[in-house]
């Protein structure tokens, strides 16, 4: 595969910058979150947004769908939602003089699915998303239906009010490229929101990128060069999440899967493109690692009791695993850290 050229990268970077600027008009004070969401989209990944109500999760997804000019459907997940409600159902219809089961596509058949409060649906319904998210297709009554491309699932969940919810199974979580935590706004941001917005009105957003441009950029991400040393760093980082492989992993019960390594590589490439570089770097991996790994490691019971969080463990991991593979001799002192 031909590597991305400087010109292509610069051109794509310009588009992405525009997209980012437009999204910053939708949601204020969340520049890093916007960067990560765009990184996830460029890496063709699904994103799980976690945050308290009213922080702008849904608004961000709606803004994204409008700027990308893609078809978007919103599914409000509830405990009584059935798999067929999202994948679609075969309906008995009369066709050419005979009655046949005609498949009626569900809300999954779109480009961007906003799965609001995904953890409120039953595991059965959550599992209906597995095939769609991984293979971009849906199988109903033995009949497989391809989903439109590009296909992204942007799910939200509330970290509080857990009564009556069904935590996402590990297999489901692993299919999300990123799990992003939306933090509260500072006073300056709140002041800007109060001054610029009104309750019940949506910000005016214009499409920035058409489907073709997005397709080109998505294919360009795959052509971003990933140096061997960066690949080696990703491998060592993922390996270090497993118990016994690093001192930070003492708090981890189960480490990350190879899908995590692939996700890191893809998102590092996307991040490099956003920074208008033709190659990914250690710094790109380090930037996306918390979002990629935080939902892919399971902490030990003791660590959770002690109040240790996944973010803290991942920070320790990133400090512990050096960029270069070789050790430094005792006669030398490492002056720069990762």
């Amino acid at each position, binding site marked *: 595969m031909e*590597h991305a050229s*400087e010109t292509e990268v610069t051109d794509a970077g310009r588009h992405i910058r525009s997209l980012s600027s437009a999204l910053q008009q939708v949601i204020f004070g969340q520049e890093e979150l916007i960067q990560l969401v765009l990184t996830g989209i460029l890496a063709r990944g699904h994103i799980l947004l976690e945050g308290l109500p009213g922080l702008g999760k849904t608004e961000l997804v709606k803004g994204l769908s409008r700027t990308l000019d893609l078809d978007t459907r919103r599914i409000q997940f509830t405990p009584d939602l059935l798999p067929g409600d999202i994948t679609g159902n075969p309906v008995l219809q009369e066709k050419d003089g005979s009655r046949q089961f005609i498949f009626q596509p569900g809300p999954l058949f779109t480009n961007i699915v906003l799965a609001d409060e995904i953890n409120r649906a039953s595991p059965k319904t959550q599992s209906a998303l597995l095939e769609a998210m991984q293979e971009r297709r849906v199988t109903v009554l033995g009949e497989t239906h391809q989903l439109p491309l590009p296909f992204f699932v942007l799910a939200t969940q509330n970290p509080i009010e857990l009564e009556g919810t069904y935590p996402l199974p590990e297999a489901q979580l692993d299919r999300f490229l990123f799990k992003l935590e939306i933090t509260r706004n500072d006073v300056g941001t709140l002041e800007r929101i109060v001054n610029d917005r009104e309750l019940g009105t949506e910000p005016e957003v214009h499409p920035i990128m058409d489907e073709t441009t997005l397709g080109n950029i998505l294919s360009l991400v795959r052509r971003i*060069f990933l*140096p*061997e*040393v*960066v690949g080696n760093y990703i491998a060592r980082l993922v390996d270090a999440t497993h118990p016994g492989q690093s001192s930070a992993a003492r708090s981890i019960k189960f480490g990350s899967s190879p899908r995590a390594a692939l996700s890191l590589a893809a998102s590092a490439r996307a991040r*490099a493109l956003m*920074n208008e*570089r*033709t*190659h*990914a*770097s*250690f*710094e*790109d991996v380090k930037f996306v690692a918390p979002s990629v790994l935080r939902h892919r490691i399971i902490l030990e019971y003791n660590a959770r009791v002690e109040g240790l969080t996944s973010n803290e463990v991942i920070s320790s991991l990133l400090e512990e695993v*050096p*960029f*270069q*593979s*070789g*050790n*430094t*001799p*005792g*006669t*030398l*002192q*490492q*002056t*720069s850290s*990762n």
Partner: protein
Amino acid sequence: MSNQETSAAQWQRLARRVSTKINLAWWLDKLAAPLLITTLAGSCLILITRRETTEFPWLQTAIVGMLLFLGMALMAWWLARGNFESPDHALVRIEASMKMHNALSAARQGISPWPGMPGNVDDGTRWRWTRLLSPLFAAVLFLSTSIFLPVSARNDAAGLPPDEPQAWKDLQADIESLGEDQTVQEDYLNELEERVNRLREQNEQEWYSHSSLEATDALRKMHGSELDRMEQNLRKAERALKNLQQGEDKMSESASQRLLNEFEEALQALAQGKMKPNEELLKELKKLDPANLGQIDPEQFNQLCENMRKHAESCQQCQGGGQQGAGAVTDTLDSLLGEGPESNESQQGKGGVNRGPGSAPGLLGDASSDVDSGDLEGLDSGDLSKSLPGDLLKLQDDEHEVDKSKTGLRAGGKVEGKARGGSRVWKESLLPSEKSALKDFFK
């Protein structure tokens, strides 16, 4: 050369330099422990060798040391080579340290152009001097200590002949002394020397064997008794001659005869003993007619007497048997029999905790009525827990507390005491400080 090629060359040169630094650091890291252990062991070995040998083989030691160091260096290289970094790896280290977003790796792969060399380049490592130099200093310290510490070579006692018994030395000294003074005829001295030499000719291990010491003791006693006998005979002869000369006219016939007999006996003993006096002296004594001493020149007589006295003194001064000869034996026997002169200084066997070693006097004689137990000493056990009723625990030289104040006659019914209270109390019963305090209060 284009800018790109120049930059590439600069970065690769830097990578080679960093790679060399890292590899050298690994080599030094692996060398430290063997160097310390080897120098410590080597230093001990040098110290032991210096102690054991008089001539230290410095050259050979230096060569062996160099070879050892070479061996260690090779071993350290062998151990460290698994960690050695190539220039490409060093390039990654540089770009990681300088946060260059892997621009050098991408440029090496031809993906992106080589970046320009910045003014300040950092490979992210710094020498840890304390860790680097500590083993080196320790090694130098060990070696310097082992080389410069003053150590004297140990005397090899096993290699040298042992000291011969003191008695042989004393006998040899007597032989030389008597030979020099020509006090004794040489036959006796030769025979004595031959006997001493025969003892010396034994195996050195046998010098202090029981039989050898027994023989030595017998020889010393024999020599001592000979010396003693000759000395006594010489003095006896001299005394007889002097008495004969002084009382020539006044002395009775019988007394004169007794002295003549004494002289004859002494002369005979001198002539017949193993140890004979100087031949000339013996001849002169034999030629002398003690009955006609008046005919001899007084000066010649005095000279003869002087010679005899000198010879006797020479015998007395000899060490071989003089001190523990017959005289000493007699003294010891007298002491044991309780008949000898009593010395106040030697309190052998007398009672008391400090009585010292030795046998009590009078051990072999008649039982003495006086036990002569010496001064009585009280021993303080300090342990009163085992004392019984009636045991004397303590003696104290003290007086009873008796009120010795004299009291005169008192008339009955007369009250002498003053009333208590009022001004009397504060004037007579209080201390001066209390009085002043009260005065101040009432002011």
